């Protein structure tokens, strides 16, 4: 089944590339970025699949057990725009070209020093034989990185100014996951990509890894009255666990429940709130109204202005 899907995905990617992109690259003397463009098509198709899976999983649950009624459909539509731009649009395209170039430069500089970056498998050769375990270790390490990025987003003034766009949403749904300022997305991509590069995440596992993390992240943002129970709440981030993080009392440095996948980090670093019955009202009371109800462009502009005017770090 997976093989069939993989084959279908490969063929569709190849067909789109050959029929539409390659002729343009050829005509504009850009054939030397053909590999990167093929990867972008691959990524975009995978993202579409990811959005469909997320919708199929989350939408029925939101309809079945909503935390609150939907009163602001416009705010949801804005979040949908965020998702489409973040996962399908120009940003991933630029990331594939620019980040690949930056990565090459950095690696070239490193290579000149004689340093060859290791991978998890080169440090622990037995991992070559157990790709599933390797995959799990990648997920754990990347999730740990995400926990700390998230904590810094809340504790550094200018970074919170950007991240507050994400928290300003009062009508949370699974679409809210991608509601981020562009600069915040760029920093997140660099952060995630650097860690992935350092530990040598396999390209084969990268799409699956992204799909898994984004599915859990979108699910945890869902308007779903769902807790995983006493033990489950400590194993995997639930909609309840993450809703506490989006609660009006959890903004900026007052944040709780920072974890993206595994709550163990909050547990370990004393930032967890496991009060299971709590489904607080969400939003950032200190943010201007435009961050909550403005359109995509307005939110980006206001977020940028707030970042420029932000005070010193308040760790």
């Amino acid at each position, binding site marked *: 089944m997976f093989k069939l899907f*993989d*084959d279908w995905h*490969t*063929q*569709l*990617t*190849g*067909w789109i*590339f*050959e029929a539409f992109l*390659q*002729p343009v690259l*050829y005509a504009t*003397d850009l*054939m*030397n970025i*053909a*590999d990167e463009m*093929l*990867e972008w098509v*691959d990524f975009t198709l995978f993202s579409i699949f990811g959005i469909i899976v997320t919708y199929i999983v989350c939408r029925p649950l939101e309809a079945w057990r909503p935390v609150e009624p939907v009163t602001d459909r416009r705010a949801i539509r804005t979040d949908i725009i965020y998702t489409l731009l973040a996962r399908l649009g120009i940003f991933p395209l630029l990331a594939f070209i620019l980040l*690949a170039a930056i*990565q*090459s430069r950095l*690696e*070239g500089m490193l*290579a*000149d020093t004689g340093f*060859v*970056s290791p*991978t998890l*498998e*080169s440090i622990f050769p037995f*991992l*070559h034989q157990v*790709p599933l375990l*390797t995959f799990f270790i990648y997920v754990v390490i990347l999730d740990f990185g995400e926990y700390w990025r998230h904590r810094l987003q809340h504790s550094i003034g200018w970074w919170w100014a950007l991240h507050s766009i994400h928290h300003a949403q009062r009508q949370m749904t699974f679409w809210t996951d991608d509601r981020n300022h562009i600069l915040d997305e760029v920093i997140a991509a660099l952060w995630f990509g650097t860690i992935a590069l350092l530990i*040598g995440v*396999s*390209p*084969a596992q990268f799409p699956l890894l992204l799909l898994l993390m984004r599915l859990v992240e979108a699910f945890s943002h869902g308007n779903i009255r769902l807790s995983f129970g006493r033990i489950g709440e400590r194993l995997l981030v639930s909609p309840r666990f993450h809703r506490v993080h989006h609660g009006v009392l959890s903004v900026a440095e007052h944040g709780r429940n920072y974890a993206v996948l595994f709550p163990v980090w909050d547990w370990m670093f004393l930032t967890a709130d496991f009060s299971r019955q709590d489904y607080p009202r969400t939003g950032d009371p200190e943010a201007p109204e435009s961050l909550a109800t403005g359109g995509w462009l307005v939110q980006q502009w206001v977020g940028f202005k707030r970042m420029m005017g932000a005070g010193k770090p308040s760790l």
Partner: protein
Amino acid sequence: MLPCLRHASLGAGVLALALAAAAPAHADLIYVLNSTDPSIVKIDTRTGEEVQRIDSLREVHHLVLSPDRKELLIADSSGNEILFVEPATGTVLRRERISNPYHLDFTPDGRLLVVASLRRGQVDIYDANGPRLLDRFRAGNKPSHIAFSPDSRFAYITIQGDGTVMAIDLQERRILWQANVGPEPAGILWHRGRLIIGIMGRDYFAVMNPETRQVESTIRVGRGAHTVFASPDGKTLWATSRVQSRIAEIEPDTLQVRRIHEVPGGPDCIAFAPDGAVWATLRWAGRIARLDPASGEVSTIRVGRSPHGIFVQPRAIQ
């Protein structure tokens, strides 16, 4: 609607039937590098089935047989390593840490291993017995494929991003010259005192005289001219074009195109089987193609995503 998909699935079926019916006395092994899977798959040509898959790599593109034919060197560029594989069994003998190896080849005398690093803009010279790094050259934007003069004195490298060919004197260890050749040059082959270079941004191969550094003629094969290989018997040059999806037969004496085969899916690297079949990776279709030069028939086998390097290991008669 999806022509390559329809062609490929039909082709795979036809090939499986043909292979089962023909059941040759010997079956070769084909190694294919799936660059974005990333994996190395080993295919049994008798059944068309995958018999082995080596995972946990990063980005495998090219491979080369060691001069003593005992090891297959597989370059994993993002993984920063070269895998040494026993070609008869597929056993991974060792892995060596090498900086971003993309294309690689041994000098004809077997003493040096030259490695081009596409993304890091460098060309490395290794002692073939190590491999131990002897020298590194900054080589501009995207050094791609390598060829040698028959006396092993000079290495010629296409510099894809700069549209040039670079010559390195391997004896004196210095860059001799760099000459313009055309947009996005890729594959390169030394052929009877000339360099034949695939101009990916155009529809031809350039024939360059390395003495004068002038392009003396061109060979039109189709848009996206990519790589060229000499058949083992020396009677044909086989050239691929990735945009127009063609494999061209070229007469080695006159450099005239003898025949064009339409092979959908972006044909890239080529390997030759003892039975005369030409095997090519189809980068955009996730398949390899078997081209029968006698009949011109093309059939395909599913291998993985973005297959690039390919190697045929002949098997003993069973």
